[in-house]
C-alpha cells in the first residue's frame, strides 16, 4: 500500500509534464473537472443546436431560464453538504418532507392568515429550524445513525404535511400572486446586454451560498465541522463540542429546507403538501449533487463551489436532454444521465484517492 503510493509519487515527479499535471488537476480538483464537463456539455449542445438536431434553441436565454430549477437543487445540495461534512454517516433523507411541511406552514401564514411576507418567511424558517433540530437532536445527542433518524423524520414530517393541510394544496390569491417571486428579472447595471435571470437566484440561492461559504470557511463552527467530520474522536480531544456542532449542521439543513419551501411555493404558485416528496422526492437529487460536487460521503471533505458547479452541470445537461429528445424519452434519459454521472463521479473519487491521495 505505502510502497505503491511512494512509487506513484516518484513516477509523478519524473514525468511532471504538462499533460500529467493537467490530468492530476482534473482528478484532484473537483472544481476543475466540473468546469471542464460544463464546457463539454455546452459545446456539444451548442453544436447540436447548429446542426439543427434540437427542438429549440440552446442559447443564453434558454440556459438562464433553466436556472430556475437550479435554485432549489443547489440550496438542498448545500444542506446535504453541511450534514455530510459532519461525518459519522451524515446524510439527510428528510429534506423533501421538511420542504413539504414548511411549504404548508408558509401557505398558512402567508396565504391564509395573511401575516405579511416577511413574518411568513420568518415563521417558515423557524419551522425549518425546528424540523432540523429534531434531526440534529436524534443524531447528535441520542446517537441515532443519521440515515435512520432522517428516514424516521422523513415519514413523520411527510405525513404531518399531508394531515395538517387536509391533503389540499393552498393556492389563495396571495399565494398565486407570489408567483412573481419566481419570475425572471434583468440584472441591474450590466443586465441589458445579458439574458434575464430567475429572481430566486438573487433572493435565495446567492445569499444561501454566501452564508454557507462564510460559515464553513470563515467561522470557528465551519472549521470545527470539518474537524469532527474528519475525525470525531480527535475533535473531542481537541475540545470541540461535537454534539452541538453536529446538531447545528442538521439545524442548518432544516433552515435551508424551509427557505427552499418558499422558493417552490413561488414556482408552483401553490403550497402543495407533497411538494418535496412526490416522484423521486428532493433528497435523492440533492445527495447526488453533493457527491458529484466532490463531497466525501465519509465526511470532512467538500466545498460550496463544488455544489454550485455540480448543480450547473446537472441543470444545463438536463435542459439540453429535454431539447434533444422529445417528450417522455427526454425525462427518462435525465434519470439515466443522473445515475451514470453519480456512479462515474464516485468511481473517479476512488481512482483519485488511490493515485493522488486526497480530493480537494
Amino acid at each position, binding site marked *: 500500500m505505502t510502497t505503491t503510493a511512494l512509487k506513484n509519487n516518484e513516477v509523478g515527479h519524473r514525468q511532471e509534464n504538462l499533460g500529467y499535471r493537467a490530468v492530476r488537476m482534473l482528478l484532484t480538483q473537483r472544481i476543475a473537472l466540473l468546469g471542464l464537463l460544463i464546457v463539454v456539455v455546452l459545446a456539444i449542445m451548442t453544436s447540436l443546436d447548429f446542426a439543427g438536431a434540437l427542438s429549440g434553441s440552446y442559447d443564453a436565454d434558454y440556459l438562464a431560464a433553466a436556472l430556475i430549477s437550479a435554485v432549489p437543487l443547489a440550496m438542498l445540495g448545500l444542506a446535504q453538504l453541511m450534514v455530510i461534512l459532519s461525518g459519522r454517516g451524515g446524510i439527510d433523507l428528510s429534506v423533501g418532507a421538511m420542504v413539504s411541511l414548511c411549504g404548508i406552514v408558509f401557505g398558512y401564514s402567508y396565504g391564509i392568515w395573511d401575516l405579511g411576507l416577511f413574518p411568513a418567511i420568518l415563521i417558515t424558517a423557524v419551522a425549518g429550524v425546528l424540523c432540523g433540530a429534531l434531526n440534529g437532536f436524534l443524531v447528535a445527542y441520542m446517537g*441515532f445513525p443519521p440515515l435512520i433518524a432522517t428516514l424516521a423524520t422523513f415519514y413523520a414530517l411527510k405525513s404531518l404535511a399531508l394531515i395538517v393541510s387536509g391533503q389540499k394544496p393552498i393556492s389563495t390569491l396571495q399565494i398565486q400572486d407570489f408567483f412573481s417571486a419566481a419570475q425572471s428579472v434583468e440584472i441591474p447595471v450590466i443586465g441589458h446586454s445579458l439574458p434575464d435571470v430567475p429572481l430566486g437566484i438573487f433572493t435565495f440561492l446567492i445569499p444561501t451560498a454566501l452564508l454557507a461559504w462564510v460559515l464553513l470557511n470563515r467561522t470557528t463552527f465551519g472549521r470545527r465541522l470539518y474537524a469532527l467530520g474528519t475525525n470525531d474522536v480527535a475533535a473531542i480531544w481537541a475540545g470541540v463540542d461535537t454534539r452541538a456542532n453536529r446538531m447545528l449542521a442538521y439545524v442548518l439543513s432544516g433552515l435551508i429546507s424551509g427557505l427552499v419551501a418558499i422558493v417552490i411555493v413561488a414556482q408552483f404558485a401553490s403550497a402543495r403538501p407533497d411538494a418535496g416528496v412526490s416522484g423521486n422526492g428532493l433528497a435523492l437529487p440533492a445527495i447526488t449533487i453533493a457527491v458529484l460536487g466532490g463531497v466525501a460521503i465519509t465526511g470532512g471533505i467538500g466545498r460550496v463551489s463544488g455544489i454550485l458547479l455540480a448543480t450547473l452541470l446537472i441543470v444545463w445537461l438536463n435542459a439540453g436532454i429535454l431539447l434533444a429528445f422529445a417528450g417522455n424519452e427526454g425525462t427518462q434519459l435525465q434519470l439515466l444521465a443522473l*445515475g451514470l454521472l*453519480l456512479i462515474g463521479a*464516485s468511481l473517479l473519487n476512488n481512482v483519485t484517492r488511490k493515485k493522488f491521495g486526497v480530493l480537494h
Partner: protein
Amino acid sequence: MSTNLESRSPATDGTPAPRKILPSLVTGQEGVLIGIIAVLWILLGLLTPAFLTSGSILPLLVAVAPIALIGVGMTFIIITAGIDVSVAAAIMVTAVITSQTMVATGIPLIPAVLLSIGVGALLGLVNGLLVAYGKIHAIIITFGTANVFQFIGLRFFGSSTVNGLPDTFDVFGRGEAGRTLGIPHSFAITLLVVAVAWWYLRHAASGRHLFAIGGNENAARLAGIKVKPLVLMTYVITGALVGLAACFFIGQGTSTLEQSVGAGRELLVIAAVVIGGTSILGGRGTVFGTLLGAILVQTVTSGVTQLGWPSQLSDLFVGVAIIAAVGTDILRERSRRKS
C-alpha cells in the same frame, strides 16, 4: 475456521473461555416487537371487531410478504454494513419485464417466476459488483443504480401501463386462488425463506462471516474471509428476492401494471429491517426481527385504515415506530456496554 470459533473448549491455560459466538435464540428486540404487535392486535381487535378475523389478518399477511421477503435480502446487506436503496426501482424493472413477457407470450407460472428472479438477480449483480469491487459506499452506488434502473423500467413501460395481465400470479394474490387451507401462499413462501435465511445466518460458516464483515471488514479480510464474493452474494440474493417479490406485487394488483409499482418500497423495507433490530452500522441483526418489523409496519398501516383515520397518519406512526425501536435498541446497547 468456524468450527474453531464455535467449539467452546474449556480454557486450559487459565484464560477466560471465549465469548459465545451465537446469539440467543430470541434477541431482546424481537421480544419487544412480539409484545408490541400483540398489544396492537388486541387493541385493534377491541376497537374494530373486524380486525381479528381472517378477512382482515390474511390480507395483512399477504401485504407483509413482499416487504419481508426483500427485507431478508436487505438484512443480509445491512449486516455487512451496506445498504441498497435501489430495490424500489429494481421492483419496477422486474415487474414490467415479467408482466410484459406474460402478456406477450403467456408463459406459465414457473418460468415467469424464474424469469423475474433471474432479472432481479442480474440487477443485484450490477449493484454487488460495483459495491464489492468498485469499493464505493453502497448508498452512493445504489442511489446511482436506482436512477439507471428507473430509466430501464420506464423504457420498458414506454409511456403507458401494462394492460390485460393474465391471472398467472393470482396464486400469490389476496383472493381464494392465493391460499391453500386458508394460508396465503405468498406468506408461506416468505416464512420458508425467512427460516432458511435464519438458519444460514446462524449456523452456516459463511453466514457468520457476514457478521464479521459488518463488524470490521478489514479484520474479516485478514482473518481469511473472502469479503468481496460474500458482499457480492448479498446483493445478488437481494436482487433475486426482489424478483420473487415483484411476482407477489403483480399478483396482489389488478390486471393493469402501473408505472408506480414499487415506488417508495425501498424506505419501507429499510424501516422494517431497522425496526427489527438490525444495526444499520452492520454486524448485528436477524431476519426474524425483519419479519416482525414488516408485520408491525403493516399492522400500523392496516390499523389506521380500519379505524377510519386518514391513511396518511400511518406514515407518522411508521416514523415514530422507527425512532422508538432504534431508540430502545440504542439505550439497551448503552446499558449493556456500561455493565
